[in-house]
């Protein structure tokens, strides 16, 4: 019964691929799992071919209760459910701002679901807004994919500063390297220097055409190509995360 947010301020770092594959592995290996797509681009929903109902949107999400229950959908995989995203989530900060205790709203919305699911995994949009603050409060653990580049380092510093500002510690932050290209010397160098400064998980997710092709076959890579290097990397990442929870 933990909430894991897959989050980074920066976009294009492999958040959705990570959330989708870890949710699949969690349902398969651990138990009933809910994947919540928080990103208005709805990429995770697209991967699972799940659409929200017509009358569902940001306001209903923040109301919680039966509005959420009614919109949770089963995926093609046993034990894996998802709450799909709606395009109206692009205005979610405005909707949040209208509510009392706006930074804790998501936590309150997810709390009643905790008893039903072993894990709730949040696929988060890339930004640093009121919604991000909600996500950081709601999550028991924040899983952050980092591409080994200088910009990633900058986004990590920004996140640490933000966590300090809102009074949350760094203990529940789990970092791992994503989209790693072995042949790039710079990747190896930045990984080494970041590992010296921060606690980073040992597993790395390689840059892989198999992961990119998830959009074509619309399945987690761990389900479509279970023997692939990418699937093995996600399996190893899930193992290591569980050891660290």
């Amino acid at each position, binding site marked *: 019964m933990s909430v894991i947010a897959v989050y980074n301020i920066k976009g294009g770092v492999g958040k959705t691929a990570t959330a989708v594959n870890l949710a699949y592995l969690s349902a*398969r*290996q*651990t*138990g*009933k799992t809910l994947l919540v797509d928080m990103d208005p681009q709805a990429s995770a929903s697209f991967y*699972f*071919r*799940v*659409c929200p109902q017509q009358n569902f949107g940001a306001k209903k999400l923040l109301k919680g209760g039966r509005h959420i229950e*009614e*919109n*949770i*959908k*089963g*995926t*093609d*995989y*046993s*034990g894996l*459910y998802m709450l799909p995203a709606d395009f109206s989530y692009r205005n979610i900060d405005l909707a949040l701002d209208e509510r009392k205790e706006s930074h804790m709203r998501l936590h309150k919305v997810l709390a009643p679901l905790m008893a039903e699911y*072993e894990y709730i995994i949040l696929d988060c949009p890339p930004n640093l807004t009121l919604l991000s603050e909600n996500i950081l409060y709601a999550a028991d653990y924040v899983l952050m994919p980092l591409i080994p580049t200088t910009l990633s380092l900058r986004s990590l510093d920004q996140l640490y500063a933000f966590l300090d500002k809102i009074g949350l510690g760094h203990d529940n932050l789990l970092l791992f390297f994503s989209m790693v290209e072995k042949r790039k010397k710079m990747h190896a160098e930045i990984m080494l220097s970041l590992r010296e400064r921060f606690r980073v998980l040992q597993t790395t997710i390689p840059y892989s055409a198999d992961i990119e092709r998830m959009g074509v076959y619309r399945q987690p890579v761990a389900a479509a190509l279970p023997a692939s290097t990418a699937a093995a990397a996600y399996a190893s990442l899930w193992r290591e995360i569980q050891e660290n929870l």
Partner: protein
Amino acid sequence: MDHPGRDMLLPDLLPTEKLLAALAAEFGLDAAPECEASVVYADSFDWRLYRKGYLLHCHGSYWSLCHGDSGEAATQPDGPKLQTSCFAGDFPPGELRKLLEPILGGRCLLPLAEVNLHSRQISLLNRDKKAIAAIEIRQSADRERRTLLLRRVRGYEGEHEVIRRILAENGVTESVLPLTSFEDACRAKGRSPLDYSQKFTLELDGDEAAREAMIRIYQALLDTITLNMPGALADYDPEFLHDIRVAIRRARSGLIFAKRVLPDSVSLSRMFRRLGAITGPTRDLDVYLLAQDDHVKRLSSCLRPGLQEFFAELSRKRQVEQKKMARMLGSRKTEALFSAWQQALKRHDRQTADLSDLPIRELADRIILKRYKRVMRGGRNLDATTPDTETHRLRLQCKKLRYAIELFGSLYPKQELKIVTRQLRKLQDILGSFNDLSVQQEMLRQSVITLAAESPQKLDQAAALGGLLQSLFQEQEALRGRFARAFARFGNQKTVMLFHKLFRKRGR
């Protein structure tokens, strides 16, 4: 794909293709190739799932649990492969395991029936090619009966309504149990549902002659031992051996007047002693190992690895003992004892004895009352200062009384018997726990002595055993203080009167 569903009967006159065409008009169909499957039904030896209304079956590593009233309860696509046996703990974490664990406890699952069938799985897709439900059409190998299982995916209620309408239009409305051939399939394996229970269920007639009734009782106990023997020898789970030992104890508890009912009972008594001695060491180790989780929890985390190491060694010792026991149980000498027992019970020209023709109800009264008086005598002075040996003796007397009540239970009114049994059980619980703690401490003390002699590297284990000894000692001391109150409850006027009312001497 795990929303509960129910098997429905397909009408004989409805071609499968016609139903699929009707569904294809509304949904995309994604059909897996038709397959012939051998479905294995699994349950514990004593039908724990069946008693609760469940049927569990597997095809390879795909498991499905159905409830007779509410339909499909849970599925598990990558469960264990059922070769000879498996436990609830062998399933990956999930809904199915959560349902199985409390029902099965420490009992294993065994393949109890096998059914061959043809199966077709078809996913129903919406416009996004997302599966919103799946149907499975199963046909028994003799092609006599076709059933359809609808598995609904959560969140697509509108589409499910359309599917239900199409099924109803085609006459698919009647819910049925997954396979009526289940009972036939059980019979093919020599079993029938509920043919075994851990309780002693023999029905006696109070006016039956004691000799005939005792022969039936001993035959039933011999059957229990024989039924459990293959499981105990193969070591499927510890309950097989436990049931054998209970049957032996029950048999021994009935021997109190045996010589005056069955003159051949001297040899029976010798046999029970031998069986008890052969099975004792393995059962003792089972009891220690079953307490493992409780014992580990008593210790701080730094002492736990040492204790786990100790239990790993205990488990290895148990394997050795179990093999030794299996060898002795399978030996010619034991076989000869069993066949002698069988022969003795079948022999018609048995000598008569003075109580042979007494109605069994009177004999039962005498046995139970005698056992009861022994408990009352032993317990009268029970308090916190009673020596452990006395407490142990009283515990054995209580056990014998309980077994005697179980043997002859069918002769007495159920409700009143329940009251006396409940009071007795409460006393037994305290005495039993006290004795377990005492035996476990002694075993640990002996182990510490052996460890010290073995190697100084086993300090971790010795420290853990020390911690555990202290914890067990404290619990035992706390129990000591509860003796007097527990016995006072058992020996109160109401229970005493009930005992005498139920088991008093009748007009002879």
